[in-house]
């Protein structure tokens, strides 16, 4: 297993996981979020399935919420 920081908390993932796989395991619709991988914003959602995750990576998954 490898350990990543996902939205500020450590999370264990199987080796060879991808961004797409992570979202799927979290039940998140990729169209409704933005993913930042090691401070790089992933603008192409079609690339999620191919983008590998590695031990120690930092992932942020954000969306729009109510605000002023």
């Amino acid at each position, binding site marked *: 297993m490898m350990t990543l920081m*996902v*939205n*500020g*908390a450590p999370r264990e993932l199987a080796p060879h996981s991808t961004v797409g796989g992570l979202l799927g395991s*979290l*039940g*998140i619709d990729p169209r*409704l*979020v*933005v993913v*930042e991988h090691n401070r790089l*914003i*992933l*603008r192409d959602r079609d690339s999620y399935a191919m983008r590998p995750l590695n031990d120690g990576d930092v992932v*942020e*998954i*954000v*969306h*729009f*919420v*109510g*605000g*002023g």
Partner: protein
Amino acid sequence: MATTLEPTLDVSPLIVGGREFRSRLMVGTGKYSSNAEMIRAIEASGAEVVTVAVRRVDLNRASEEGILHHLDPNQFFLLANTAGCYNADDAIRYARLGQAAGFNEWVKLEVIGDTETLLPDAAGLLEATRVLAGEGFKVMAYTNDDLITALRLEDAGAVAVMPLASPIGSGLGMLNPYAIRTIKSRLHVPVIVDAGVGTASDACIVMEQGVDGILMNTGIAAASDPLRMATAMRMAVESGRLAYLAGRMPRRETAVPSSPVTGMLE
């Protein structure tokens, strides 16, 4: 439900960054007790521009609906904000994340300088405005009511400058009409007053200063009846705009009779 002013009455529509907007009232989406109440209030306000914030998805409740389940980007112009950012780098990061969410290149830029008053950090605002405008963002910059900062933000490339009426969420109304009027008289980009409007009369008085619009959130969301207050705010913004265009009578320190002083009975 929402009425708009006759074009002959409000001769000039609001144009920001080359885009025409159908309402001079912009509203936030925070602090509502339910999404249904939020939508009803926003529709009653007649607003086209609706602000949203960028936050982490709660992974323990990932199936919880985000705000996009409720706000149709085709019905409203979604304006991402950088609320909660305390330095230029964070604000730039949030602006880019908001843009990547996929609607437009606009951002309501906030760089806050103090947790107690939530007053803006002028230096951080200027730095972030320069960077984001250079990347092609249309920056609407929330700022204090200081003329010099407003002028610098315009120079830095902001498409609108948004001075506060009073601190965010305070509902204190406009504390310094002179400062707001001065900013409006000196800037070429639109001036949208942001924050501090507590009730309809506040909104009306702000618009009577001649500014181009108002952005508010708490004034509607924290009212006991947001639907009624949203309606009142829509009318107040239109009312204040019309009164400004109409040109108010001069103030006098003495009375002047409205009825003829001649023709009185002996």
